[in-house]
């Protein structure tokens, strides 16, 4: 439990006082730091080892996606969406394609929907695997579990490279379908990857459930209640770990997700342990979805034959399209004024909004816990700063 000294209570209640804060230490866990998951900065005020105040500083990777999009065509913005959440490029593409399809009223053929689900769930697998590897590294396991996670990730990246031509910036979705169809032999390779994945998950789940150090460091740390989670806009695994039963695949039923039977794991305490356990369980559910989708994949076209590729000018209007990205609710709000360029291209970043309660989660915890809490929020700076 936190025991704040008198001087720190004074500082907190009277921030403008001239009281010389001799007992408090201000540290900038600065943009270059081994464990801030990118160029993220936190100005932390410490009382010994306990956190008294935490102010995050953003903008070190502000790359002006929204301004650049106003000068690009709609399709020209698609490669930029790859670079938002740069670990999961395919789901970013999907969210943008969904928003434009809502804006222009485009239908997507069956096979393309199945391909979207398959590649989207593979993306979710490699994102969560990498994240758990990074958690272990943050807790001090010095890289070896990260190597296991990246080994699995490389298998999935090989699949993406064979399909789209790039490991990370896949640029796979188009308005009305997918860019390219499966090469021969891809399905067998993907089947093999999906069949072998549960063995890796068993290893990691055993680690999480039986490792004392991990359990002691993550249980009861960074707790968020259900009401706080909804009010502060949390979405995705962060919100579900706090008990909010809101998975966009079940709520919005975008694409063809209503055809697959899968469960939505929920946490009950809302601490860091719940978030990680939840992601492992989500990976298992993703494998279920993948098995069903790969079994049922129909043949047919992968693009809507009526879609205009050149001279694409949607009618003036606006649309908000959102998907359940691995990090949370990724939404695109597009306003069109009848010209080939979007008038307003807004990215609703799940990572930024999940960080709203960072200060609240960290106050009273030790410095070492900040790193773990930040890791459990699963941020990617490309999305936070856009």
């Amino acid at each position, binding site marked *: 439990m936190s025991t704040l000294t008198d001087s720190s209570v004074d500082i907190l209640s009277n921030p403008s006082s001239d009281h010389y804060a001799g007992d408090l230490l201000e540290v900038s866990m600065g943009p270059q730091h081994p464990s801030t998951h990118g160029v993220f900065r936190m100005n932390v005020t410490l009382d010994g080892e306990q956190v008294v105040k935490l102010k995050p500083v953003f903008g070190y990777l502000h790359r002006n996606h929204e301004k650049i999009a106003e000068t690009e065509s709609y399709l020209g913005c698609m490669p930029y969406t790859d670079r938002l959440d740069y670990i999961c490029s395919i789901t970013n593409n999907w969210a943008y394609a969904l928003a434009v399809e809502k804006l222009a009223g485009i239908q997507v053929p069956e096979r393309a929907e199945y391909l979207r689900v398959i590649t989207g769930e593979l993306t979710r697998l490699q994102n969560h695997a990498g994240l758990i590897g990074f958690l272990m590294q943050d807790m001090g396991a010095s890289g070896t579990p990260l190597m296991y996670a990246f080994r699995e990730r490389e298998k999935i990246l090989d699949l993406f490279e064979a399909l789209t031509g790039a490991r990370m910036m896949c640029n796979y979705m188009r308005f009305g379908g997918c860019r390219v169809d499966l090469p021969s032999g891809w399905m067998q390779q993907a089947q093999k990857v999906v069949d072998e994945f549960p063995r890796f998950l068993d290893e990691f789940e055993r680690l999480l459930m039986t490792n004392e150090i991990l359990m002691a460091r993550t249980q009861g740390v960074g707790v968020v209640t259900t009401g706080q989670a909804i009010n502060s806009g949390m979405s995705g695994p962060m919100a579900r770990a706090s008990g909010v039963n809101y998975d966009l695949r079940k709520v919005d039923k975008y694409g063809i997700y209503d055809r697959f039977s899968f469960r939505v794991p929920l946490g009950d305490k809302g601490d860091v342990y719940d978030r990680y356990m939840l992601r492992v369980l989500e990976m298992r559910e993703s494998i279920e979805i993948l098995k069903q989708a790969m079994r049922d994949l129909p043949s047919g076209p992968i693009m809507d034959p009526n879609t205009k590729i050149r001279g694409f000018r949607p009618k003036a209007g606006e649309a908000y399209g959102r998907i359940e990205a691995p990090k949370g609710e990724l939404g695109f*709000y597009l306003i069109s004024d009848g010209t080939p360029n979007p008038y307003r291209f807004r990215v609703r970043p799940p990572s930024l909004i999940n960080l709203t309660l960072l200060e609240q989660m960290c106050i009273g915890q030790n410095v070492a816990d900040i790193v773990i809490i930040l890791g459990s929020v699963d941020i990617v700076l490309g999305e936070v700063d856009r």
Partner: protein
Amino acid sequence: MNLEEIKSQIEANVPGCQLEIIPNGSPSGQHSLLVDTDHAFAVASFLRESASPRFDYCSNATGIDWPLKEVSTKVKTKKIVDGVEKEVDEVVKTQTGGYLEVVYHLFSVEQREGPLVLRMRTQDRAEGVHLPSLTPIWRSAEFQEREIFDLYGVLFDGHPDLRRLLMWEEFQDFPMRRDYVDPDDYEYEPTAHDDVLKRAQAHQSTEGGL
């Protein structure tokens, strides 16, 4: 979720508010509700506390810049030409825009409803840029309103900590506005065309071929 029905609910419960349904031209069907700034806070409070469905989740807060634009439309009017009343095409010039707009997308997690699109407009793009902050109602708007302040210059009254989010503190401009001119580092542009070509050429002539 029927927008008309929600509008009448709000009008019944928040006296004096002026709401307007802004239709959406695209097939998405997401029409929005324009709220006046004096009652926006009360409306938002009602939507979160006692509306049916309760909108407890504010997903997205966006800023938009609508600079003043003259739009000419052809209107058929009856005019007397040479003593005979005829229908003539007259060009009517109206002005649209001249304000900054903030759009909120609200969802209901418990009833699985949404989105409800709420809009607020400022008076103009210069001095009258104050809007009520909805952060005390939905905490998710905290960082997003800071970003709208940073990039558009909208001042939110009642925001707990209104400072720049993405740009550095000493930065003076509001970059996402349509009339922003970006800084001049166009010395070397290998495939320049259009505006960029002009700016690169300006560099080469002023710096004497540096």
